[in-house]
């Protein structure tokens, strides 16, 4: 079920009523919320519900086994089983085809024939997100950061529909305590929730859809037919499209959770204002970045070893982070590029520290840092969106060589990209004032305002809603 659809509006209306009516009765509320979340997931394909249930069972059994084990080796074995079960599911459904084809081609080129049957495995929506949540839970129990939650609490945590299919990737210790408390029905943060949901709808339905159809899809589909300027603007456009699409989704998810009295972690913080590669990853898909840091980079050794080991760990983390986004060499290259960016950033920081060079404070140099960081990130998006590394190479060459007419670069396209990037530089207090002012209004005025805004969004956007980009990941 997609958020910006009538189906979801009806579903959420019913869930909102049931949620607050059953709020005083924890057991009934948890059963209701579990059923609602599974219905939400089954809307895509009922056959895949068992996967969510399997991941939940593996994670919970793993964490209970970790807690019950008497010896460190026993705890470790239980943790590996819980993590391995989730990873096994993820690898089978997401990577089997990619690796089978890659090996097959490698063996064929060596004249050795086929190795694996070329099965086409359906990628279940959201599997990358809920398996990562399951893994973090088992590891947190193993590390003693959290204790195993009761079965029903854990089931609600992992299947909670606002975050289920595209995050944010929430830790158990963030959400389980909220599940175990009764929410106060008198204190819903409607100002913040409305701002996030309606803002998210605008980003997804209007901004992302428009930029995609106006320039990104035609240019990336047939780059040889387009000029240097069109390709350049299409790359900037994709940077804006993927931000509007993904941050729009998570804003809606966080807003919906707020209407139910839950607080989910922030996932984006004006990423295109980043001054360095490291800064970018603190602002982009923040819940994935911290997951990769805590459950991959740190276990690899983090920055505790030599410089060479730190660089290695950064590269491994980012390449695997790239592969998490999809089973293709373009994603591997995208991750590697960001890994290189982080290594270069560390080199520069180390040198500045050694030479006691302070971070620049004048706006001009800060602006330059932001500009170059954005260019680097966009180079990554070129790899990320292109259908192959060869196509990305062709596009990159054409940016410098294929000068000519650029009919797709219209003032409206430039305005949409400019507004999207410019909005990230607005003071953070501005939305807070809007939210506070909105919360002062009566219910009728709020409803009219939101209804009119909805009309504007649906009028500006295309008919029908494309799936969110991150549903594929």
């Amino acid at each position: 079920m997609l958020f910006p659809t009538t189906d979801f509006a009806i579903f959420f209306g019913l869930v909102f009523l049931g949620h607050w009516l059953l709020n005083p009765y924890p057991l009934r509320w948890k059963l209701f919320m579990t059923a609602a979340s599974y219905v939400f997931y089954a809307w895509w394909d009922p056959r895949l519900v068992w996967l969510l249930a399997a991941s939940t069972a593996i994670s919970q059994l793993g964490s209970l086994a970790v807690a019950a084990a008497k010896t460190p080796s026993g705890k470790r074995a239980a943790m590996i089983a819980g993590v391995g079960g989730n990873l096994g599911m993820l690898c089978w459904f997401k990577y089997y085809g990619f690796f089978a084809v890659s090996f097959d081609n490698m063996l064929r080129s060596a004249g050795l024939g086929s190795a694996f049957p070329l099965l086409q495995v359906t990628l279940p929506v959201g599997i990358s997100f809920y398996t990562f949540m399951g893994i973090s839970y088992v590891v947190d129990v193993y590390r003693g950061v959290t204790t195993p939650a009761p079965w029903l609490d854990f089931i609600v945590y992992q299947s909670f529909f606002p975050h289920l299919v595209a995050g944010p990737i929430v830790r158990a210790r963030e959400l389980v305590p909220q599940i175990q408390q009764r929410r106060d029905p008198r204190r819903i943060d409607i100002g913040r929730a409305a701002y996030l949901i309606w803002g998210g709808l605008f980003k997804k339905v209007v901004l992302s859809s428009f930029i995609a159809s106006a320039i990104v899809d035609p240019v990336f589909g047939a780059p040889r037919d387009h000029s240097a300027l069109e390709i350049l603007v299409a790359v900037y456009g994709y940077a804006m499209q993927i931000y509007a699409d993904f941050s729009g989704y998570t804003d809606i998810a966080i807003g919906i959770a707020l209407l139910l009295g839950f607080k989910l972690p922030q996932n984006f913080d004006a990423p295109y204002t980043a001054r360095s590669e490291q800064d970018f990853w603190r602002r982009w898909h923040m819940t994935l970045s911290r997951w990769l840091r805590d459950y991959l980079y740190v276990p690899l050794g983090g920055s505790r070893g030599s410089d060479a080991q730190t660089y290695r760990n950064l590269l491994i983390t980012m390449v695997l982070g790239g592969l998490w986004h999809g089973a293709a060499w373009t994603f591997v290259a995208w991750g590697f590029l960001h890994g290189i960016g982080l290594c270069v950033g560390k080199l520069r920081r180390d040198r500045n520290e050694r030479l006691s060079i302070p971070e620049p404070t004048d706006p001009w140099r800060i602006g330059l840092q932001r500009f170059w960081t954005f260019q680097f990130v966009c180079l990554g998006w070129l790899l990320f969106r292109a259908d192959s590394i060869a196509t990305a190479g062709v596009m990159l060459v054409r940016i410098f060589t294929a000068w000519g007419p650029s009919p797709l670069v219209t003032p409206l396209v430039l305005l949409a990209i400019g507004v999207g990037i410019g909005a990230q530089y607005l003071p953070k207090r501005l939305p807070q004032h809007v939210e506070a002012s909105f919360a002062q209004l009566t219910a009728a005025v709020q409803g009219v305002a939101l209804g009119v805004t909805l009309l504007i969004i649906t009028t500006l956007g295309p008919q029908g809603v494309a799936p969110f980009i991150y549903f594929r990941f």
Partner: protein
Amino acid sequence: MSTKTRPRPATKPASPAEIRRRPAPAGKVLVTMLVCFLVWGLLDARSLRRAAEASPIGARRTAALAVLDPLYDLSRVTGLDAVGARASEAMGRDPNQEPGGPISIPPSTTGAPPAPITRGGTGGMRLAGGGGIPLPPPVRVPTKQSPERIVVVGDSFAIGLGLGIARDLNTPLVHLVQQGRESTGLARPDYFNWLAQVKADVERFRPDIIVAMFGGNDFQDLVVPGGRPVARSDVAVWTALYEQRVADVMHIATAAGARVVWVGLPPAHSPVLPPTGVQRMNDIYETEAARFPGVEYLSSWDLFARDGGYAAYLPIGGKVTQVRESDGVHFTFAGYAYLGRHVVGLMHSILGLKT
């Protein structure tokens, strides 16, 4: 499980601005949501009702219309529907247009105005039957000033195929117009009228070649404007009516002097497109193509089937390549590129396209 825990605020205030923010009780939020959807429903009733009309025939559509019909009446009586209509018009849209909205017209990359062409047929819109239509003249030799005009029409298959063709026709001697549209077909003229669209396309672009790929959404009951739907289980009537629509598209195109490449459906692995449905529609495309001079049928089944059925991977250029998406229906980009190469090859070899 803490059943006796005291209720707590959902969020802790963290800044002076947040302290000023007034939390709302659930009842107020519910009223806000109801007012919001009522206002939106009244203002945009026309679009909502048209979208519901266009949805697949069944209980969902009936229920949606049962809710939206009175809302639409109320919207008209109160004059509120004018707000939505004016908003659509301000966006350059016809508020009564098909649910998918207008097809965007890409600007010509050459800037050359289309040259007049000789009509090979009657020029009129007499539909049905290929009889009486002479063979269109050979495809002309394009120039930079007057490039070959190729229009791609059809459902989502045609969108991907258009991109695949574009990859192989990278030449200033071709002006490719991609008119593929998602979720459309020949089964539901109440949702999107492809006959009218193809007619508009031939008048506007005067194409030398039309590439058509339909059928991805067509194995369903056929809607007859002003009549009862024809169930797909009623094979004889369904086949005759669908045949008529395919023939009408071919007639409109060839009567305007265009050559047509009609691409058949590939084997699919999805309940949306069972083998019987694909076979039934491909037989119709192939039979009708044979009746119309100037229409060439390209069997994508033959290109993509392995062991008589669906295959997700094919050896292309010595490398195993995934050619089908995991939905079991659509092609991957590599698949579209492979199909596009064959379409371009056909245009070169049979239609005499010289680029």
